[in-house]
């Protein structure tokens, strides 16, 4: 499976985007988000970007007020995921220009579209920013 979920959560612990690649019901999602957000937010920058949780790992990265948390299988290459987060951020940056929490909040659908172009069924599909953004551009042209 590889990637199990991608979460964007702000400093206050509010979820800004949640995409799961394995089905969890609402209760399970709430519990999981609560637990890992608590774990990750409590860490400082001198600590590593990996947190072991139950039988998987969370690779996380912080950008200003926003945390990007990616749940992966234990065997996944952690650094590759860590940089994948950065690629996602750079892609959003290219589209929004200086992306911030509000962009993601108010353009949730775009954030979803980008993520959907990048990850499918827990696997990385695309890593070229222009390929990722082309469907969105297509859509903007259409409207």
């Amino acid at each position: 499976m590889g990637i199990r979920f991608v979460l964007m959560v702000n400093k206050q612990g509010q979820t800004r985007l949640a995409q799961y690649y394995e089905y969890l019901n609402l209760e399970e999602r709430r519990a999981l988000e609560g637990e890992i957000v608590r774990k990750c937010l409590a860490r400082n920058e001198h600590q590593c970007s990996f947190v072991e949780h139950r039988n998987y790992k969370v690779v996380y990265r912080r950008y200003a007020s926003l945390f990007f948390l990616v749940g992966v299988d234990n065997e996944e290459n952690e650094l590759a995921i860590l940089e994948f987060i950065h690629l996602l951020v750079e892609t959003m940056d290219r589209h929004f220009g200086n992306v911030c929490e509000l962009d993601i909040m108010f353009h949730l659908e775009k954030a979803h579209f980008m993520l959907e172009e990048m990850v499918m069924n827990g696997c990385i599909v695309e890593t070229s920013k222009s390929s990722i953004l082309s469907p969105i551009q297509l859509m903007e042209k259409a409207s």
Partner: protein
Amino acid sequence: MALSGMRGLSVFISDIRNCQNKEQERLRVDKELGNVRTRFKNEKGLTPYEKKKYVWKMLYIYMLGYDVDFGHMEAVSLLSAPKYPEKQVGYIVTSCLLNENHDFLRIAINAVRNDIIGRNETFQCLALTLAGNIGGREFAESLAPDVQKLLISSSCRPLVRKKAALCLLRLYRKNPDVVNVDGWSDRMAQLLDERDMGVLTSSMSLLVSLVSNNHEAYWSCVPKCVKILERLARNQDVPQEYTYYGIPSPWLQVKTMRALQYFPTVEDPNTRRSLFEVLQRILMGTDVVKNVNKNNASHAVLFEALALVMHLDAEKEMMSQCVALLGKFIAVREPNIRYLGLENMTRMLMVAEVQDIIKRHQAQIITSLKDPDISIRRRALDLLYGMCDVSNAKDIVEELLQYLTTADFAMREELSLKAAILAEKFAPDLSWYVDVILQLIDKAGDFVSDDIWFRVVHFVTNNEDLQPYAALKAREYLDKPAIHETMVKVSAYLLGEYSHLLARRPGCSPKEIFNIIHEKLPTVSISTIAILLSTYAKILMHTQPPDRDLQSQIWAVFSKYESCIDAEIQQRAVEYHALSMKGAALMDILAEMPKFPERQSPLIKKAEDSEADTAEQSAIKLRAQQQNSNALVVTDQRPTNGAQPAGQLGLVKVPILSNADQSAAEIVSHANGALTVVDPQPPSTPSPDLLGDLLGPLAIEGPTGAAPASVASGLEGGVDADALAIAPIEEQANAVQPIGDIAERFHALCLKDSGVLYEDPYIQIGLKAEWGGHRGRVVLFLGNKITSPLNSVQALILPPSHLKMELSLVPETIPPRAQVQCPLEVMNLQPSRDIAVLDFSYKFGTQLVNVKLRLPAVLNKFLQPISVSAEEFFPQWRSLSGPPLKLQEVVRGVRPMPLAEMANLFNSLNLIVCPGLDPNPNNLVASTTFYSESTRAMLCLIRTETDPADRTQLRMTVASGDPTLTYELKEFVKEQLVNIPVPSRPPLAMPSHIQPTSPPPSAISDPGALLAGLL
């Protein structure tokens, strides 16, 4: 159309954002849900734009963690919207809100299929993504062929094909029975020729999934993967868009190296060379740079390369290079690299050759155990646990103990369990083991499970030398002001059994021992009181001549608890009181506990269980499992036949009486056995007199009462004798039964290169072999499974004339729970089917065990696969025209098997079947190269002609350039076809328990039998 275009949605999001607290948020959400619900009710009035807006609101609310149980239909209906924006929303929201088992998804299948087979490629992408994210069985059934077609279609653009690859991956992984991937090996290889990096990235994921199930079919992909790696590593023809901070797609590099780890090895020398060149370049060329992203990306590649090098069993030099790199990493400041260094070093432990090099980093790893980051501490703990062996156990365990007092609560239980296991597995001497466990209980009593202290009692009981020491230690701990209740339990038990061994020391008179234990009684729980009562009874028994004063003190305690509300305590008090008044008979009934039979440590089992994970098979895990079969004592597996001696007396036996402390119950099981047999009524109104009366008849009626037991044990003895009488003489002499079938193990090892050759309750002999040309290197792993040393170990090789074998020195003694490795060099001089034998013997106590084991240095080990083309085959076949170089024989009595199975059998013997050479589909043609000193490398060709009407016979023709080889190979293959290498079970089930040195364990452990002897 951006969200900002959907004003209502933006307003709603701002409202939520402005909410001061959760309650306000809930109110606002409820209001919105009500609004959306009413709008959906009169659906006719909704424009697609409105629908889209409301569906996004639903997704937003769902993301906030509120249940959205309506509107699914609306989301699904958007799938068939004609316009892209609406359709896209429909697809994304549907895949977020619904799961594969949702009913509405069934309605969606048609719309999805229409988009997949339609002409609009953006629609195709959306549909493939949905099916790839949440597609279930029905999707697989109706869509798989279409998806497969898209993936390999040449007219399809990369943006569709990359999604098709991952869609197929999901459909296949979820329903491998529905999606047909036969013949996909060629297509997969073609896909890897793809230039588009997006398609390549997703195809690589697909390949990983396919090979993780069955790598055999995908060998042809290995050179392609290596080519891709070369292309990326040399940065040839990699578009700028796919270069990340100067590194050609690190993700594709990582995935490709991951795919290669699912193949057991890379055979082809050219491919292997190219691969190692790339890996060497990665290992040497990765520098630390300032830019964080570049650094991370290059190290992501580096760590994957390390994993691949380790998997490929590279040269020792390269492995040491890897360890050196990791050693550097675990000491750097950057926490991510430190974490990964430790993690990968733990994986590296599986490579036996580098374990010693890893040990050099022990000090640094111990430092990491004190790292401020819990993630890193956990990795360090795992690594220390993994690298621990006899040589460093003392240091590591002492570090763990020291760390225990400051460790986070979250880690203490794991830490104490691991420390206990290591102490048990690798104790240089048992007194140290006792020290460790007692310290563990002292420092972290709350985290020490019962299993741990049961185990220490087990060891002390089985080792007489240890008993005075353990008793003394227990006595010392009792002097401490506040001790953990577990410490009270274990001290009381040990002192009850062995305090008489300390009698002359100051402070150790029975009276003093009783007083100091009794001090603790008011503070402990019921289960501990039960143990204390047993201890008192034992102290009384050991005090000879009786000390009247002490006696009355203890009797007073017993009579106090005779009316205890707890039935277990009450029963013990009554019984001990009565027994202790019997005087000398007490000596027999409360005698010391007999030795425990050897068995798997429940701790190790517990640790194994907690590591069990249901995640899918990964390359690393597969490897770990392989490793397990080599590692002997390390995992200390339960005997495979699972049969344990009946009526085994164990510390963790299920309590018969109540749920009170089990081991304590067993202490008195001798006495209990008698009383519960004779006394039909529970002593609910206990009176010493009544019991005295009851005990009176017991003495008289005892023999009759116990007669059935003695008959039973007699019968059991009889059965033993019978079983032994029919056992092969060899085994009778040993009286140690092997675990598992030796013949079966031998046959299995003929086909694979590592596994267990022999196992009995005391020793396990594992084997790992590497064969190349006419030489082989076999390592025998002799593992002592028990807690006392095995002596007079001797191993003699009886080689047949065609093999030259040299076994390195085998040590005379194998320390407790240790493993020794003995390399054995093999050289094949000429073709022969004779088999080498290992004559192995050792002594356990006074008992000599001797076994003769066939070694799997058989003919097929000197065969190397070669596949020949028709152009090469036929001239050879014709030139070897007849006997003695070409021999033909009709073989009868062949084990009937389908042709495919026969082909597999041939392949597993390294006789590589060349499909298509023989036009008749009932024939198999195979080729191989045989290596020996006399023949050098020699091509051998085999043809079998089978009769579909009669599978029990076939005609076999074997040809090679050497007459002896032709003959031997023909006979060898014949043996494989005719012999049935399945277990030949002994006619009668053998008793699986060990013949003891003293009375049989069944008798010891059966209270009835014991009493029978006693009375």
